[in-house]
């Protein structure tokens, strides 16, 4: 019988392979996993695949793809082979993320109070003032505990040497944590024996930790502060996640129309009348959250919410205006931000970044479009980007025009050969596929990171784009004790 890994060719000289080391032997933490998968017959795999599919379908785990006309709701593709991260490696990631989130939070507190970092010319002020997500409306508002970013999901990748790098920070409404939780359940059901052979750190208590974090930021200390989840509604790509998290935390899932502000206090409408709300875990973007202050045509928000926040009667997670710190232009300054506020060297490096707004960089970008990945500064989810090596000359020409028209809005990075991991292309064959990692960080009275996070995998052959909106899937991610 052919074994599954017999035909696995990782090309370790070109890419960092998570499972097979450069010399061709498996990394020790993957030994058991490989042995186990090598024992499976094609029928074994099919049976487990079927089990997982039924589970996901029954759970109704879907996401919505924007910009296509038909069948926009999809099941998030799940890959059966787990990603394994040894504890020693994970601790490095954890320390790096705690450092990074601490610095980014200090940065936001500064931008929305004294703007010292701008006065000291560490970051050109016009970059912040020109950021689409810098909210003048929020300057001077002091959120409880001084925390602006309560829930974050930074995207990490590994370069050819296996170094972890931060690709981007998602400080607004990062999604995907529900997939992480569901992937774990699916994996435990389909591979109970394999799962038991490892000591995998649990992720299951994430919703309770999230709830505790939200309770900690209540504007007034209360025994049982009222927390709600605010969703844009069923047409949002992450609606499943919003309802899932609300259910897991045992709190009310609300839409804008379910809430009302009266005399600077926020209430939810219940059958027993209005009930005061202390903390809102909002998954509605700033622009839509309060038609009195932001887009007046928004029906997703609550009129008067920002003023209630300003008065200290309600807390939003994340704070208004946190997006200025995950602007991709500001991203390139994060190492400086860490040095400025913490006086430390960054533990996790950034990906090298060129700013189209800098004339010298712009020239370089335009001359090397075929080699670079170009991204719009304020987009997320893989929208508005050009992957140079996979683009046509026409696409590059069109993109160059857009860049020249609005240079502030674009950055470029080298095409990083993301690390690869064996993944199923179909029911029987595996191949090396590019992956990234989105750990979820909670920031309340202290910072906690759920072990692992969501590993996203580019399941299209050769593709480097792991976003679910662009055909990516995901894997269960195991942090194991050494």
């Amino acid at each position: 019988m052919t074994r599954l890994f017999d035909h696995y060719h990782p090309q370790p000289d070109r890419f960092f392979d998570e499972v097979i080391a450069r010399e061709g032997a498996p990394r020790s933490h993957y030994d058991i996993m490989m042995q186990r998968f090598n024992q499976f017959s094609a029928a074994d795999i099919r049976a487990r695949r079927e089990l997982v599919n039924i589970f996901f379908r029954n759970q109704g785990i879907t996401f919505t793809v924007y910009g296509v006309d038909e069948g926009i709701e999809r099941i998030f593709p799940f890959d059966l082979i787990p990603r394994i991260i040894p504890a020693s490696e994970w601790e490095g990631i954890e320390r790096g993320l705690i450092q990074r989130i601490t610095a980014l939070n200090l940065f936001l507190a500064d931008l929305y109070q004294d703007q010292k970092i701008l006065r000291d010319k560490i970051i050109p002020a016009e970059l912040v003032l020109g950021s689409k997500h810098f909210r003048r409306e929020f300057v001077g508002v002091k959120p409880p505990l001084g925390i602006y970013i309560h829930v974050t999901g930074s995207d990490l990748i590994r370069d050819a040497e296996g170094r972890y790098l931060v690709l981007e920070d998602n400080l607004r409404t990062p999604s995907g944590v529900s997939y992480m939780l569901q992937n774990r359940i699916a994996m435990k059901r389909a591979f109970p024996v394999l799962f038991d052979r490892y000591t995998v750190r649990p992720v299951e208590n994430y919703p309770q930790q999230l709830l505790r974090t939200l309770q900690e930021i209540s504007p007034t200390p209360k025994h049982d502060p009222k927390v709600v989840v605010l969703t844009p509604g069923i047409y949002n790509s992450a609606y499943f996640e919003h309802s899932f998290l609300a259910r897991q935390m045992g709190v009310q899932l609300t839409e804008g129309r379910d809430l009302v502000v009266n005399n600077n206090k926020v209430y939810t409408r219940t059958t027993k009348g209005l009930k005061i709300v202390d903390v809102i875990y909002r998954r509605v973007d700033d622009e839509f959250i309060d038609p009195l202050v932001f887009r007046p045509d928004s029906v997703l928000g609550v009129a008067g919410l920002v003023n209630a926040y300003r008065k200290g009667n309600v807390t939003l997670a994340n704070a208004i205006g946190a997006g200025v710190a995950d602007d991709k232009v500001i991203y390139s300054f994060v190492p400086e931000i860490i040095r400025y506020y913490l006086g430390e060297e960054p533990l996790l490096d950034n990906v090298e970044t060129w700013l189209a707004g800098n004339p010298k960089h712009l020239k370089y970008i335009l001359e090397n479009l075929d080699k670079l990945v170009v991204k719009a500064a304020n987009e997320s989810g893989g929208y508005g980007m050009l992957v140079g090596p996979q683009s046509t000359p026409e696409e590059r020409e069109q993109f160059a025009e857009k860049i020249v028209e609005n240079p502030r809005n674009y950055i470029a990075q080298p095409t990083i050969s993301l690390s690869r991991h064996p993944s199923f292309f179909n029911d029987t064959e595996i191949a090396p596929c590019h992956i990234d990692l989105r750990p979820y960080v909670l920031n309340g009275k202290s910072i906690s990171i759920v072990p692992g996070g969501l590993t996203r995998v580019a399941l299209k052959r050769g593709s480097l784009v792991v976003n679910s909106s662009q055909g990516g899937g995901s894997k269960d991610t195991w942090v194991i004790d050494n």
Partner: protein
Amino acid sequence: MILKVEHSTLFEYEEPIYETATEVRLHPASAVGSQQCASFNLQITPPASVFDYIDYYGNRVHHFNILQSHKRVQIVATSVVETDAQPETGPFTEDEILLLDLLAESHYVRFDPAIQALAARFREIDEPCRQATEICQHINDSFRYEPGVTDVHSTSAVVMALGRGVCQDFAHIMLATCRNLGLSARYVSGYLYGGGSTPEGRDEASHAWCEVWCGAEKGWTGFDPTHKSLFVDERYIKIGTGRDYGDVPPVRGTYKGASSEKLGVSVRVSSLEHDGEAPESRQRQRV
């Protein structure tokens, strides 16, 4: 001068509406330059609790909400302001980040090719105050004052193409031209006291103009491209400033309910220095 402002805004609805939320920027600026606000009163009907805060640009914002259904909302702001004919003397300082903020494009202030071409005509002038004066003069000469051709959403690019508009539009043109030349400039929302001073001889009590940063010696200097006098004097009452109209709308609000809205605004500015014989200016403001 001691000036009294009565500014009434009335919203009327055919069908009842509910959950009104409103923010107003109607409080005259106090202790800025040569202006002091002696008193301010805000009356809301139906009655509502009024709250206030200071926004990013230092303007005082009042806000209130009305939950229960209603068919009309009236907001009456009454203030007494003392203005001084003598401008303040320098040297002046200003926050460097604010000055940068007031150099960039904003929602209403666009650097379209027409503005760039206009700005280029003044590039050679090397003194900021003279540069601003020339720009102000040019706009006053070549743009036609005509209500009704633009609306509250018109950007400087639209007004450039039309060549006509009202005070808000002229202010945006001047801001775009100045900023394109590297002069920090801000929009001013306020009132103007005085009989028959618009180009057509009408009063325009509710008014908008600009201020240009003319360096430490002269500080913020007011320019009014709508009126031939060009410079801002003691007849001008300032409410607040921002990048453009969008930062200082006098009244902004939302409501729930399906009904058409009818808006009526009246502004009256009178002098209190003539023992009740106050010459008045009165006008229904365009919205």
